[in-house]
């Protein structure tokens, strides 16, 4: 009993403690949280607010993807399917039976986890690029199925019934309400990741990423470690999908199960810095505003597609110069400073 209490206290401490991080990082993150918290009160126009919500959503997607892709080093290009499972579970259950949002979330998670478990073992027989292609294919198959199935709304998609007043059962609000809703979800995943990165599983996962043979020689079941992580990532994607459904109030397989979405999720973590806690947040902070402002700006000037080229350039430069992303550049600079001083 006392041992259990101690373990719980330990987990809570790991979840809420940032003491192992440098002071500068802690201050920067605190400033970031304050900024995000007061954002709707500072900015009164609606487009930036929408950008902010999308940023938080993608930061959250990135945090989840960072588990398998960053800490696990397995480039998964099929996270959109899990977002889709969450989104469809929520949208369909609300439109068919009027089930409260909070009950649809665990259902979406369950669907994503069960499906991921079913495909995980054959997929993890593959490595590197082959694994990436397999994840991509599985996600595409699901998208096609959802497009053809009539019972899920097919290509027409699902429209959620709109409530007239702010509603906590179906989680429908104005922009400010959604802002705090996604902010809370983001914080929950962020704190989970803060616990995770210090956990035994995190060390084992990183060992598997860096060298599978060495990991196995230390008693780590390599495949099971990957599968476990893949399931947690799937669950986190489904939560994001559920939010997306009640936020947009309309979903179809082309928006929630699209290949673009899978890639953007992976990019968020990889551009920011895969395998670090700040990476996905940094990545989303760069890619999402870029996507939403640059696309609109250049499109308005008649240069359609230029934003994609700029996008692709950033990705190419990052991939060639520093595969650990922007956070990798910062860490390397810091390390060099340390070596020079030391």
């Amino acid at each position, binding site marked *: 009993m006392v041992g259990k209490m101690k373990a719980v206290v330990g987990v809570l401490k790991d979840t809420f403690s940032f003491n192992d991080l440098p002071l500068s990082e802690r201050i920067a993150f605190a400033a970031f949280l304050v900024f995000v918290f007061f954002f709707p009160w500072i900015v009164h126009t609606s487009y930036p607010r929408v950008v902010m919500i999308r940023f938080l959503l993608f930061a959250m997607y990135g945090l989840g993807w960072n588990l398998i892709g960053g800490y696990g080093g397995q480039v998964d290009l099929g996270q959109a399917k899990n977002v889709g499972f969450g989104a469809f579970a929520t949208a369909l259950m609300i439109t068919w039976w009027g089930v409260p949002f909070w009950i649809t979330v665990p259902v979406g998670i369950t669907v994503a986890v069960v499906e991921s478990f079913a495909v995980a073992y054959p997929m993890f027989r593959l490595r590197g690029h082959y694994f990436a292609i397999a994840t991509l294919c599985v996600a595409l198959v699901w998208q096609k199925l959802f497009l053809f199935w009539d019972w899920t709304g097919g290509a027409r998609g699902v429209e959620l019934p709109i409530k007239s007043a702010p509603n906590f059962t179906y989680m429908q609000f104005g922009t400010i309400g959604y802002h705090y809703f996604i902010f809370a979800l983001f914080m929950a995943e962020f704190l989970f990741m803060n616990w995770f990165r210090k956990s035994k599983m995190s*060390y084992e996962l990183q060992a598997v990423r860096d060298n599978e043979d060495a990991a196995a020689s230390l*008693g780590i079941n*390599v495949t099971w470690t990957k599968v476990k992580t893949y399931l947690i990532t799937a669950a986190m994607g489904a939560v994001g999908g559920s939010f997306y459904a009640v936020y947009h109030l309309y979903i179809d397989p082309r928006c929630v199960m699209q290949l673009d979405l899978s890639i953007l999720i992976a990019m968020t973590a990889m551009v920011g810095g895969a395998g670090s806690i700040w990476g996905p947040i940094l990545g989303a902070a760069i890619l999402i505003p870029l996507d939403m402002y640059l696309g609109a700006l250049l499109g308005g000037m008649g240069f359609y597609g230029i934003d994609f080229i700029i996008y692709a350039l950033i990705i190419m430069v990052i991939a060639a110069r520093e595969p650990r992303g922007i956070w990798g550049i910062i860490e390397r600079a810091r390390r060099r400073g340390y070596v020079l001083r030391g």
Partner: protein
Amino acid sequence: MFLEVKNLYKEFGGVVANAGVSFGLEKGEIVGLIGPNGAGKTTLFNCIAGYYKPTSGKVFFKDKDITGWPAHRTARSGIGRTFQIIRMMERLTVEENVMVGAFCRINDRERARRDAQEILELVNLEEQANAHPTELPIATQKRIELARALAIEPELLTLDEIAAGLNPLETIQIIDTLRRIHKEKNLTLLLTEHVMQFIMRISERIIVMAAGRKIAEGSPQEVARKEAVIKAYLGEKYAKGK
């Protein structure tokens, strides 16, 4: 018998890497496994530690049949190993590399860290604890491999060419370290090596392999005089024109 290998065969397609190898180890022994290149030493190690499934034959560890067990299971049952080609977790620090080993027995992070620090002291690496392994010289990386393997608290430690690439001084240092650990941790050691100076000094008993078979076994002095051994080694060397 502590470890027993019985008539072990391992074939890759048509190539026979191990052709009916049998030997045994008693608890606490230090046994060297030597042989010219391609004799099948590393294959044998991989079969014992579960990286390869033997084509036929059996491996018993502490009287349990462990033939074909996956690597993580043999590790958990008490067989530690180092690799011929160094395998570091390069994004983790030295201390974290060893901690991963300690996590094999310990769930608590801080206890695993303390354990790792103790083991790093044992192999004289306490000062490099926070470095990244790939920043360090080969000799140090070999010690990290050793520390990591020790962290799982193995009863049998198999070392695949731990002295390869080390200079004579480093070789003597690692012999000292291994002797100390052998005594302190009550280990059984099985080593392969090309560096004769190393293997002859540390082993109590030597097994000689050539072309996938065991050709001799005995004390270092006995083995060095056996005709089959001289033939296997010198014949090979002359053939290469060295």
